[in-house]
């Protein structure tokens, strides 16, 4: 970039800024007063956002299901009463029972632990690997960036489900392996996002200033580049939790995930499929729970993303 372009850009950046609210000639006052609103239309905002509140509530309940299922149901998730098989939703069994007389509500509640822990493992795999790769690609640049970029392209070009099935066949069946497989497919998006953020932050004046005050490469990366790049990545984490739950349920449904007695959500739907003509509740309720949790995770991710965006504008 030529010096001219660079300085023009710098001037623009300085000029665009809405500036601190009121800067009296005394100069050293006024910074904390309100900022000019800008054109962002921040005006018409409710003090709280009901959908966001609801989304957090859904996630909180599901998290509690996973941590302390005993608080929510007294029924066992694995052993049923054969006499009570295929009961429709009612007073004793809120969401009905399955073909072995197991309480469906209890199975969904206990299944939360399986589905959520699998989702957390999956997202952790994707986040850790993706962030490290993205940080390396974005900060090293050049040939390293190009190689990582092409690897990510390859990863993205393989359909997610196909890749997950292949990985599971290699690693063996099971919840953890399914989670790792799902995590592997999300590495690509984490890498992409982290890389673009790192590239943006890397070019900023304060990173150069950090080098200018004698910062070593690694310490500048850890102290300045990484923390300032993570905002949008955090919102991707929330989004990926939703996607991972779907993916894991899909694998469970296809029989590649947890083995049968486990009340994993995808498996619940798969088992209920056989009775769909007579017992609609067996597929509908687990399905609804998955949909709700995924929507809630998306909503929360969206709001974190906006928060990160707003924080950046400041």
């Amino acid at each position, binding site marked *: 970039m*030529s010096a*001219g372009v660079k300085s023009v850009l710098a001037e623009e950046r300085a*000029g665009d800024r809405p500036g601190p609210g009121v800067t009296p000639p005394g100069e050293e006052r006024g*910074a904390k007063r309100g900022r000019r609103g*800008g*054109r962002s239309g921040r005006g018409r905002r409710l003090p709280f956002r009901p959908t966001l509140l609801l989304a957090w509530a859904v996630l909180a309940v599901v998290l509690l299901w996973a941590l302390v299922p005993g608080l929510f149901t007294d029924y066992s998730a694995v052993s049923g009463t054969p006499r009570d098989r295929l009961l429709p939703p009612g007073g004793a069994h809120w969401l009905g029972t399955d073909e072995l007389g197991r309480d469906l509500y209890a199975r969904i509640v206990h299944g939360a632990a399986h589905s959520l822990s699998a989702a957390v493992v999956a997202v952790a795999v994707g986040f850790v690997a993706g962030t490290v790769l993205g940080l390396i690609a974005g900060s090293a640049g050049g040939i390293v960036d190009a190689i990582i970029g092409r690897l990510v392209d390859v990863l993205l070009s393989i359909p997610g489900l196909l890749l997950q099935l292949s990985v599971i066949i290699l690693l063996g069946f099971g919840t953890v392996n399914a989670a790792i497989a799902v995590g592997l497919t999300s590495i690509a998006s984490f890498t992409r996002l982290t890389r673009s953020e790192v590239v943006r932050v890397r070019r900023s004046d304060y990173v150069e*200033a*950090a080098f*200018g005050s004698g910062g070593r490469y690694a310490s500048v990366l850890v102290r300045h580049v990484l923390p300032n790049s993570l905002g949008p990545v955090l919102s991707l984490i929330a989004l990926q939790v939703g996607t991972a739950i779907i993916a894991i349920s899909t694998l469970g449904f296809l029989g590649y995930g947890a083995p049968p007695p486990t009340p994993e959500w995808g498996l619940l739907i798969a088992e209920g499929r056989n009775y769909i003509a007579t017992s609609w509740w067996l597929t509908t309720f687990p399905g609804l729970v998955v949909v709700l949790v995924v929507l809630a995770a998306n909503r929360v991710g969206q709001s974190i993303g906006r928060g990160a965006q707003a924080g950046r504008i400041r």
Partner: protein
Amino acid sequence: MSLLEIESLAVSYSTAGGIRRAVHDVSLAIEPGQTVALVGESGSGKTTTAQAVIGLLPENGRVERGRVLLNGTDIAGWNERRLRAVRGTQVSLVPQDPVSSLDPVQTIGAQIAEVFRLHEPRDRRPVLPRVLALLERVGIDEPEHRARQYPHELSGGMRQRVLIAIAVALHPRLIIADEPTSALDVTVQRNVLDLLDSLRREFGTAVLFVTHDLAVAAERSQRLVVMRDGRVEEQDDTATILQAPGSAYTRALLADAPAFSTVERVARPAGGGSSAAGGATTEAAPPTAAPPALAVTGLVKEFRRGARGAAFRAVDDVSFAVPAGTTHAIVGESGSGKTTTARMVARFETPTAGSIALAGEDITDARGAALRALRRRVQLVYQNPFSTLDPRQRIRDIVEEPLRNFGLGDRAARRDRAAELVDRVALPPSVLLRHPRELSGGQRQRVAIARALALDPAVFVLDEAVSALDVTVQAGILRLLDELQRDLGLTYLFISHDLAVVRQISDTVSVMRRGRVVESGPVASLFADPRHEYTQQLLSAVPGAAVPGAADALPTPLGDRR
């Protein structure tokens, strides 16, 4: 009857923190054919006032009170549809930023033609000849060719001309020009302002000229309205205000505006700086026959466009020497290579050829550990105070960081040093625990200076370090820099496009153009007697140059402008 009358206008914004009033009780009037300048610092409400006139407030803005009389009709409460009929035909706007105000995917011809299509849809006359005539009128060469170009193919000055063409297309009675030249170089600025002036005379259009630059306002307006904190501080004929400013605030503004400043720099003796002030000078050079603190010889920087593209010489054979304790300024317009030169001196860029010496020691090829050690001797202060501080760090951590990088002192010692540095740049100790976003631009720039001071460097490279700041803030930073230089014997390389500022702070100066130094020498003699044609051009384009001296006696040429 006045063309435009604003009566006790109040505008407020609703923000996350509640409703905030940006303009309280502003009244002013504009006569046909008159230029009224609305002057104030950022946040004074001048732009808000201008936007309220044509109903272009941001979504969260609202006119609370007051009337906006255009030809005697109150248009303050009008809806979008009615205002649309007024905009362009009666009142038009020249926006500030020529880069973002034009549609990047339409040719400029199409964008000008749009004005005619929108407002005169039944007019059967072909539009193109009118577009071309207009382009020619605003001084754009080869209008047929330019009309087919896209905004990115034009320079900033030309884009601003296009915006002016759009604004005057329908011969409005009033043009609102919101900082129309703030993003432009001085010579370009003068041309654009001349154009506005001549259009005003030709069509009898009135101009409401919003600017933070008092010098420009003084030169171009018949009436001056000084705003502060959303209120009118003072308004009168320009000449009257300049001669006898009524309010203390206006006097302060006038005193701080570099163009009017009478502050003459007392030349620093080479090798100066009293080491008595804390002995903070690093390895002070021997007093006599010392090599200059900074010497640059035959510096060249080439950038390559693409893998095998032609080399572009951003800096071409630049040489200068700065004696210790003095200030050398590099002036030039954007693209002149001054910033690249600064970055090479601070060693953020590696020169293609030439050498850089610090106190006689060649640092051109410093790498690795040597380069890192060099950071203790040369520090760069950036232009934009909003981007040079990590938004996630507290001020204390920012100022301490250089010390931590070099493992200087233990935790407690570093804390003390940070507090001392913050005090040194005249900030209250309370800022130590704040984050950058809680500080104003001037305060942030002071923090940046404190951070640069932390390692006791000998040389400061100041890259447009005060250009983004309001005049009073700017004056404060300049005073601070001057004081630091006196006390610590610092050597400054001061990069600026603002000749008025340069006159205040530098001992010697190099004028750069297209990568080359066209003229250099002591500031006093070079400004008094510029030899090179380009220097003369630059000096004469400085706004307020025609308005000599300070706020006292002003033999003003403004009276005969009408």
